[in-house]
């Protein structure tokens, strides 16, 4: 950034004579003025449009360069302004030359006014969908109903035919061989089979396939919410924050290293940035983003006001929808995996930095846990706790003893959690 600033200042030196709004804009952005100021509305600092009308240029130069010194010099206006904004001091910009300040002021003066934008109507939050595919159930039950109807109809038909035959015997046999209708479709060899045996056979074959499918379905699908991506009350984008802005996961999920829960951040964490950052990343105006407004609403925070006055007395916590739901009898500890196991968040949560809407990436089934415990190496070398285990493993491998134990499923030699009791029941169930 400094390089950028110096490059910009070089250019300015060349054309010092008249104020340059374009250079001013660059400086405005390079110095992150926008993180505390907007042109047409109060953010952390006052709205800047018309500032040259309110204050003299000399005053502004002194204030912008070092407002602290300026205030200490006893300037009444400066101190009044400081007090008005609840004692939130502005940063010091000794690096800006007078000419540069003039350029910035020129940019503020000439910046175009935003066109009026109709307020967006906030869409009702979509109802979250958890669990299996409802359409499939509808289809299956319809098919079932049709089959039943078909069965009843054919039964009615045969009954009618039988009754008709009883009342007015036909002169020809009802059925050539009195065989069930289905036998016509069977291979010739089976056509003379005892119908009871045959129907049992068919039922068994169908049942085996049906049960097999159900078993697989039951084992792998029921209760598994992989891909579950409910609409959240605030459309928070991990792609933007973790991906584009490269904010560390643990900045928000700060307890992941210390606690069993990674925990959803409290809204004061959001406010660390969003007290200042109020626009959407795609916004063209100074309008506060609808999603950020939801944070303010939850905190009952009025961005137009300053200090304690900004907080009302009706905060409402945000009810996020829980995506990863382990059953109560399974104990999982984030700090064990993040701090001790040194796993990346993405190992279990997938490419979270690319997700606009977060979804459950892994199945969270026990087999999935176990597979990882069988194959992942524990860093026994760099943690004193594992010293005894490390020594034993080294000695064993050297002496060619119990060596098979140290081969994990992929054939590599490593000390896995499984080797250290990581597959035992009461490591996770108690």
């Amino acid at each position, binding site marked *: 950034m400094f390089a950028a600033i110096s490059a910009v200042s070089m250019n300015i030196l060349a054309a010092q004579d008249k104020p340059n709004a374009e250079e001013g804009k660059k400086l405005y952005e390079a110095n992150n003025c926008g993180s505390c100021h907007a042109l047409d509305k109060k953010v952390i600092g006052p709205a800047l449009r018309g500032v040259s009308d309110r204050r003299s240029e000399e005053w502004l130069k002194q204030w912008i360069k070092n407002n602290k010194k300026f205030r200490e010099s006893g300037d009444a206006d400066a101190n009044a302004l400081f007090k008005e904004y609840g004692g939130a001091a502005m940063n010091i910009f000794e690096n800006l030359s007078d000419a540069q300040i003039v350029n910035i002021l020129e940019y503020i003066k000439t910046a175009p006014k935003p066109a009026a934008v109709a307020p967006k109507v906030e869409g009702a939050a979509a109802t979250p969908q958890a669990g299996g595919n409802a359409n499939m159930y509808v289809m299956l039950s319809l098919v079932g109903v049709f089959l039943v109807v078909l069965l009843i109809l054919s039964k009615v038909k045969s009954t009618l035919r039988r009754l008709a035959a009883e009342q007015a015997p036909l002169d020809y046999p009802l059925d050539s061989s009195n065989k069930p209708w289905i036998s016509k479709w069977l291979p010739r060899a089976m056509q003379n089979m005892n119908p009871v045996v045959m129907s049992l056979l068919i039922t068994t074959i169908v049942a085996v396939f049906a049960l097999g499918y159900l078993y697989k379905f039951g084992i792998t699908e029921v209760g598994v919410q992989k891909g579950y991506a409910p609409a959240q009350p605030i459309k928070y984008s991990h792609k933007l924050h973790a991906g584009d802005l490269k904010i560390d996961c643990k900045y928000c999920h700060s307890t992941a290293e210390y606690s069993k829960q990674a925990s959803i951040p409290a809204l004061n964490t959001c406010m660390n940035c969003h007290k200042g950052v109020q626009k959407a990343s795609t916004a063209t105006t100074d309008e506060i983003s609808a999603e950020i407004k939801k944070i303010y609403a939850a905190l009952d925070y009025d961005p137009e006001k300053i200090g*304690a006055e900004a907080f009302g007395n009706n905060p409402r916590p945000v009810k996020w929808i829980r995506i990863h739901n382990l059953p*109560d009898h399974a104990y999982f500890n984030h700090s064990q995996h993040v701090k001790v196991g040194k796993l990346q968040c993405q190992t279990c949560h997938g490419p979270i930095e690319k997700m606009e809407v977060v979804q459950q990436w892994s199945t969270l089934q026990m087999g999935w846990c176990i597979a990882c415990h069988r194959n992942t190496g524990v860093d026994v070398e760099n943690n004193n706790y594992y010293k005894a285990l490390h020594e*034993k493993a080294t000695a064993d491998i050297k002496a060619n003893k119990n060596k098979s134990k140290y081969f994990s499923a992929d054939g590599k030699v490593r000390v896995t959690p499984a080797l250290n*009791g990581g597959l035992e029941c009461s490591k996770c169930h108690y």
Partner: protein
Amino acid sequence: MSNTIKYWKGEEELARDPKFLAARKNEFAEALPLDEVLSEDGFELNSNRRDFLKFFGFSVTAVALAACYRTPVRNAVPYLVKPEDVTPGVANYYSSECGACSTGCGIEVKVREGRPIKVDGNRRSPISLGGLCAQGQGSIASLYDTERLANPLKNGAEVTDWAAIDAAISKKLAEIAAANGRIAIVSSTINSPSTLKTIEDFKTKYTTAEHVTYDAISYSGILSANMADFGKAVIPSYNFGKAEVIVSFAADFLGTWISPVEYSKGYAAGRIPSMDKGMSMHIQFESTMSMTGTNADYRFPIGASKTGLYLASLHNYIANKTGATQIPVAQTAEAAGNAIAKAGDALLAAKGKSLVVCGSNDTNSQQITNAINMMLENYGTTIDLTNYSNQYKGIDKDANALMLDLQAGKVAAVIFYGVNPVYTDNAKAWENGIKKASLSVSFASSKDETAGLCEYVCPDHHYLESWGDSEPKAGLYQFTQPTISPVFNTRQAQVSLLTWAGALPVLEKDPFQDKGILSQKHHTSPYYSYIKNNWSSKLTGDINVAFNKCLHEGVWTAEAVAPTVPAYTGAAASLAAGINTKTSGMDLVLFTNVAMRDGSQANNPWLQELPDPVSKVTWDNYVAISKSFAAANDIAEGDTVNIKSGSVTINSVPVIIQPGQANGTAAIALGYGRTAAGKVGGSKEIEADSVGKNAYPLVSMTNGNRNYVVSGVEITKADDTYHLAQTQTHHSIEGRDLVKEGTLADWKKNKKAGNNAGDTHVYTIWEKRDYLKDGSPNHRWAMAIDLNACTGCSACAISCSLENNVPVVGRDEVRLRREMHWIRIDRYYSFTNTAKNEFDGNYVTKEKEIKAIDHKQGDKGEYNHWENVKVVHQPMMCQHCSQAPCETVCPVLATTHSSEGLNQMTYNRCIGTKYCGNNCPYKVRRFNWFRFNDNDHFDFHYNNPLGKMVLNPDVTVRTRGVMEKCSFCVQRIQEGKLTAKRSGADKNDVKVETACQRACPSNAIVFGDVNNPESEISKLYKNERGFTVLEELNVQSNVMYMTKIRNTETV
């Protein structure tokens, strides 16, 4: 030696009662209605094939429809502003003080996400020394009791506005004071400097106010005796740790007397035998078998009304030898076995290092006790009157005088704080008195017997919601701080008093008060400021820093003062007059037990279900009678009796034939029979049956003190029978020897004395576990329990239940042997080996002999052998066998073994065959017959959302149909390991304490990693006293017990 002593848990087992033997063979306590099911008798259903098809079809449809149900959406609601000190998922610990009784143990409160879930002793507190009794452990459940008052009451109706109540009461008080009417504050013992100042402030405003202390369980006798002898109406500090010989006359100092946790810590330390110091000797004289009596080396049964005479005899025996003045009493008493001479000699041999205590509330007896201790030069060593105790201060005379005035209508206003006199003795007098007062206020947190009669009830906070300070001993201060925001619209009693006195500190208007999320940081109580102001004169430096340090530590001590020998003004000659020498029929002892104490926590189901340490009875009190009385009056267990003393009768009280009960005496516990405790303890208002019978009406005033011994009581057999929920023989020992004991003399000669190894089967088909092999890199978790230290107090059981979400099952389920406690304390009786002494031929070694002896003695009308039993307490929980019988029989591998020695129980895999429970030799597995946490039939707090707040979030709540058992607190092991791993600490630095160990007031339980050579447990594993129970089965259990060593001549 163990193979010659016959141990037994109950008479039914000892006498091989045929009914008991038959029932023992059954898996279930009640017969399953199998025959009925098979023959289809007793079933109204007339089902046939078609019905079967209908049900079948319906079930299939129901299952299919249920499968279409969507997984419910679950929410996660984070803080708006996370408090800095709270990390979700990580517990915080705060120092505070237990408020369950006025003893004032320092505690450490475990708080998860803003709700307290466990209390344990604060190690810095000299009162608790890190331990905590069953009542203290259980008191956390009272916080989440839905029957606490949610709002103040006026004439029984809820008022939500405190201001309205305050205005009305202040106006009334002002009127009364103006008319010179008396205003009485009746409280239990208050030793809080700030509360006392509050009352002073109240008195300043209302000059006619007075403060009277009324303790339901009174120590008025000691206070008056010390007033007479030393000019100080205080209780001294007793140092049981320093005493080499302890003689107790019916003082249950390990269970309920004054400061039991502190005494247990000291006592147990002196009970571990060592080569140079040996161990202390404990002699107990008492009528009924108290928990303390079960721990005595020598226990002599005596008639309760003769305590004074026995004391005088002991006094004169010692005076005779030391040349001091004797008490001129005509009679002398001598218990069988030359008890007085034995005790006197032992005490004299340990002069200056001995201790005589007396549990009687009789001033004269306490004065004789003082005289004995004075002769023995125990003041300044084992008895400290300089740093005296403030734990109990109630003088019965004063409270009685107030009661009489109140009854006579001489008191205009009465305020009850921490007392419930309408439940205790003289209920009628208090009741009439309250009705005559023109203003009556109670600070009770529930609508108890007294509060129900009061015009106003201004519910006090639970102690976990309160601010406070205390001075339990001179110069020792402790602090209470809130660990949760008030659950209900209650208010601390001190705030109420200060409001009415107009002395409440006015807090500066908080600029953030109505500022939503900002206000949460700025929530303070005016009483906090009040206390802090009081402390500003005592503490040096910045008061904020110094006071925060006090809160953090929980304890602040003034400069230590060395104990001195006080000036004694008593005279032995004057003590003769007060000694009872008359024989006056049957003595009934009114005692308190560790679970209920004075009865104030009767609505606490955990405490109600705690088996009494001696009788193992839950959910009831009973009359303990002696075997000879039972035989003479043809009373058997299961019968009930009527008790009559003067005009007071208590009908249909169930009986227990208590081994060790002195002939001619009986005993009944106080604290039961509440009529306005709530749905658990009993309440007339909601038609909930009382638990047990109220014995307080039998308490009378004798010589100015409340007397807990009733003489000349008539006990007659009643017509009805009653099935007590008694757990004593639920998990039968099948006649095996599970405990071992030896004598100190033998132990000094041979450290393995009494610990002769059983006949171990060394063959096994199983491989040796890895963690048992040399050089194993694994932990090996194990426990060691010292039978010499374990007093039977049962604090561990409550601690375990709260740590591990163990449900309460209720009286009916206990009767069916379905109690769920993961840790139980097995109490084994054995007859005192008196073969070499006076009861020749009473030497019971084989089970069949008891009937012969009973017969022989019974013919003479004597059952003296039943009076002389000794006891071993053995905590029993899952032994985590390395070759566990339960593991091999589980058909679904729900119970398996870990590489660290734990026997793991996996609830989600269990299908409830109960094979494991049947195959367990220790009978420590418990089956969940019901979904206790969500079944309103078991209305014991877990079934409502508030009660569930006490659940430990790290432990699964088990559902119906699965087995459960002690896990060695695996959640704590995992947490300890993880803490070490996170910081990269050495494997041997892992610190784990199980819940039972943490609670233990006598340090009897040690837990740790045997594979760590530096650990305490690995050292104990090498101790010669160590043995494993049922070693001969070669199950290789991971719990080591230390042989009990008695300081007696013979075992």
